[in-house]
C-alpha cells in the first residue's frame, strides 16, 4: 500500500465526515427541532462548527500532502480553481456563522436564529456542489 495514497484516503475520511457534520447538523437544526429546543441547537452548532473546522483543516492537509510528497501543490485550473475558492469561502462563512451563533444566539430573535440555520444549510449545500465541480473539473 502506498503511504501517499493512504494519507490522501485518511484525510478524505476526515473531509467527508466534516461535510456530513456541517450539512446534517445545520439541516437538523433548521427543520427537525422544535422552536424552543435551545440546548439541542447549541449542540448542533458545535457539531457544525467542528464540521467546518474539519473541512478546512483536511482541505489544507490535501495541499500539504502533495507539497510534502512532491514539493508541488496540485495543478488545477479554471472551473476547479473557482470551485476551490467557493469551498474556501463557504468554510470561512460556515465556521464564522456557527461560532457567532454560539456566542450570540441568546440575544437573537427566533427569526434571526432560523435565518442563521438557513444560511448554514446554504453554505454546506454550496460547498458540496463546489466539491463535485472541483473533483471532476480538475
Amino acid at each position, binding site marked *: 500500500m502506498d503511504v501517499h495514497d493512504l494519507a490522501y484516503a485518511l484525510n478524505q475520511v476526515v473531509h467527508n465526515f466534516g461535510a456530513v457534520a456541517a450539512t446534517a447538523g445545520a439541516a437538523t437544526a433548521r427543520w427537525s427541532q422544535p422552536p424552543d429546543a435551545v440546548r439541542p441547537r447549541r449542540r448542533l452548532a458545535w457539531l457544525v462548527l467542528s464540521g467546518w473546522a474539519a473541512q478546512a483543516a483536511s482541505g489544507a492537509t490535501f495541499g500539504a500532502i502533495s507539497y510534502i510528497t*512532491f514539493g508541488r501543490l496540485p495543478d488545477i485550473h479554471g472551473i476547479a480553481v473557482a470551485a476551490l475558492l467557493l469551498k474556501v469561502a463557504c468554510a470561512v462563512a460556515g465556521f464564522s456563522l456557527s461560532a457567532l451563533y454560539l456566542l450570540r444566539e441568546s440575544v437573537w430573535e427566533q427569526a434571526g436564529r432560523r435565518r442563521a440555520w438557513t444560511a448554514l444549510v446554504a453554505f454546506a449545500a454550496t460547498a458540496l456542489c463546489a466539491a463535485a465541480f472541483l473533483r471532476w473539473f480538475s
Partner: protein
Amino acid sequence: MNVLKSAAVVAALGFCGAAYSVDGSVTISSPAEGAKVGLSGVKIDYDVVPGPKGDHVHVYVDGEQAGLLRQLKGSYTVDKLTAGKHTLCVRVVDKGHTPVGLEKCVQVVAGNVPAMGY
C-alpha cells in the same frame, strides 16, 4: 561503531533515493523539437509510463494547462496557436493532480505551413 554509522548513512541515503526517485517516462513522438507547425489543429502524440505515483497526464501550452488526459498513450490536439515559438509539455500528475516530476516538453514554431503537394 563506524560500521553502524556507515550503515545508517547508507540507509538514510537509500531512503532519500527511494523518496525522491521517479520511475517512469514521458515521450513526445510528435511534433519534434523545433518543428514548424500550423496555427491550428496541432497534434501532440505522447506515450507515458507513469511510475508508481503517477496517475494521468496534463498537457500545457506555454505553461498554461490545456488539457487533462486519462489515457497514457495517445494524442492531444491543440486547437489554436498564435504565430511564433511555443512550448508544449506533457506532465504526469498523481490522483490529486500534483505533478510527480515526470514531464517532457518540446518547443515548436507555429506559422502558416504551406499545403503539401502542387
